[in-house]
């Protein structure tokens, strides 16, 4: 097993004719993902790398039976694309697009909950269940099949962690980048609860960063609900307070949101925090025996 995606994932790429959409459709296809359809309004009948293109997600669902969508459309249209996916019977939406207005996300979040549709992102790298399926922009080749669940707010940082896990001989059940925007679909706690239930996951690496207090809430959740070993890493120890460091998730908004606060919180519930990424495998080894 794995979480959220596996061999049964049938993918539609929304915005498949754009630069990034086309490139990553091929990358996913090459990785072995079942990329069954693409959608770009007005381009029905064409194809990219043999992937048939449809005018609407509804058509793609009807004809190809896709159940998962990955979104590469520009920010001004991404919200529409997500509602379209949700209304067309897609059960998992992975939104790569960056720059979606926050207020739109609030309304979308409630709607997807009502419709029982899972969203990963926006502004995220997607996720990969090595050997099974990859949905998003993660570099497939660095991942290996295995028993570690990885969840991160940051894309490249999670690659770095995965890279060091693989060097140490650890594969991943699923590695998921949840995105760094203020309002996201799937959060740390969602991922943790799924990893806990997944029989193929034996331990979890949680990669946090400064800003917000999702890490603190996760720490409380771990203490209550997670019996599998969890190892953490927090980015932003040298970030000056008040300065904006890239995406919105990385603003220090006040007391309690610094790297130090988060590290202390995790350690208080027995979750070790690695000082360097290269030290994560060692901490896992201690716990997995």
């Amino acid at each position, binding site marked *: 097993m794995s979480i959220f995606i596996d061999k049964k994932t049938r993918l539609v790429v929304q915005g498949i004719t754009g630069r990034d959409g086309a490139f990553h459709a091929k990358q996913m296809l090459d990785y072995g993902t079942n990329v069954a359809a693409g959608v770009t309004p007005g381009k029905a009948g064409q194809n990219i790398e043999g992937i048939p293109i449809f005018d609407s997600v509804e058509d793609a669902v009807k004809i190809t039976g896709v159940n998962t969508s990955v979104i590469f459309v520009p920010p001004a249209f991404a919200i529409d694309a997500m509602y379209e996916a949700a209304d067309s019977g897609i059960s998992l939406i992975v939104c790569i697009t960056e720059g979606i207005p926050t207020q739109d996300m609030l309304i979308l979040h409630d709607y997807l909950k009502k419709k029982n549709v899972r969203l990963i992102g926006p502004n995220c790298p997607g996720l990969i269940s090595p050997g099974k399926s990859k949905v998003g922009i993660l570099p497939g080749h660095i991942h290996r099949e295995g028993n570690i669940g990885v969840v991160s707010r940051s894309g490249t940082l999670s690659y770095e962690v995965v890279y060091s896990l693989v060097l140490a001989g650890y594969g991943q059940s699923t590695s998921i980048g949840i995105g760094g925007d203020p309002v996201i679909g799937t959060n740390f706690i969602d991922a943790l609860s799924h990893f806990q239930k997944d029989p193929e996951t034996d331990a979890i690496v949680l990669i946090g960063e400064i800003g917000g207090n999702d890490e603190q809430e996760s720490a409380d959740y771990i203490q209550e609900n997670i019996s599998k070993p969890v190892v953490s890493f927090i980015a932003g120890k040298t*970030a000056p307070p008040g300065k904006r460091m890239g995406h919105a998730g990385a603003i220090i908004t006040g007391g309690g949101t610094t790297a130090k606060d988060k590290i202390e919180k995790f350690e208080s519930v027995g979750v070790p925090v690695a000082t360097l990424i290269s030290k994560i495998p060692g901490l896992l080894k201690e716990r997995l025996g």
Partner: protein
Amino acid sequence: MKIHEYQARKLFSRFDIPVLPGEIATTAEEAEEITTKFKVPVYVKAQVHVGGRGKAGGIKFAETPEQAKEAAKSILGMDIKGYKVSKVYVVANDPKLIVTSESYLGLILDRGKKAYCFMACAEGGVEIEEVARKTPDKIFKIWIDAAVGMMPFQARKLAKFLYKDPSMVKQASQIAANLFKLFRCLDASLAEINPLVTFKTGAVCALDAKINFDDNALFRHSDITEMYDPEMETDNDRKAKEMNLSFVPMEGNIGCIVNGAGLAMTTMDVIKYYGGEPANFLDVGGSSSPEKVKTAMELVSSDKNVKSILINIFGGITRCDDIAKGLLIALETLKDIPPVIVRLTGTNEKIAREILLQKGFNALSNMEEAAKHAIKVAEGGAL
């Protein structure tokens, strides 16, 4: 996006939030004229996007038009935390309006609760972050559902937290409702009235105004985008913005060019861990193009303290070959570039390595090794 106080006050007026009369002046003479017109004493306030204007001498009281002229003269051209003052806001300060209380009203988005958070505090005119940290109980909070919007009972609750007098409660309820409307209609990310005052007359009024906007939503608010003041950014800020780079200069001597905010922060952390000092935070973002890398190189090497540059790329949506191409263009076109240490892994890594190798560049693949090497080079070691 940030806007000036005078712009925020204009928006307040548009949404029927009462403010005192004020006008903008770019010369001392204009400040004098405005004061003459107002016929009352004024405050002359520097318009810059930073806090602590008062402490820096950027806010002055003037009894007469002549004093206003003098005040404007001394403030215009002033440097406040690196920002040059080119505009002052002249605000009427009628001595008959006696302030009887100062409080705080603020609206932000609570990412955890996925709702708007409206805050009220009976202590106004002070730094609210300070209050939040030291005496969180003094801040009254209400959460507002996005689909529902602000309900009258919520506005009433906020107003009642601040005032007992029924007329003041009514006025403050209306102000809170209007501030919410402004926030929603204009896609704000922060809207603050600090202080919200009451006068002896019984009127409630916003004495200051602060609004920040959600950058992601600016595409649908051309009127807000027009409020953007290019004077409020450095040349480097502008260059970074044009190329959609995230760039924050710091004190150290090792320049960083990284893809992804998380990895960029980690790169700085690693440099620090091994005893070095990062000179900046720079995230080239996702979908990177060679031009972006060239601009990044320009930004980083413009800091003369920089003794080595560490390019740390883990390719996902970023393609390593784009980075390699951009680096080569930068090396060909820019002068006085400090030694560059490159670390590449991920999407199109192989092509990138080939490109770089043709120019004699040997890219590393381990981040920590690359960071240690960059520190050594910055300290004068060989590349």
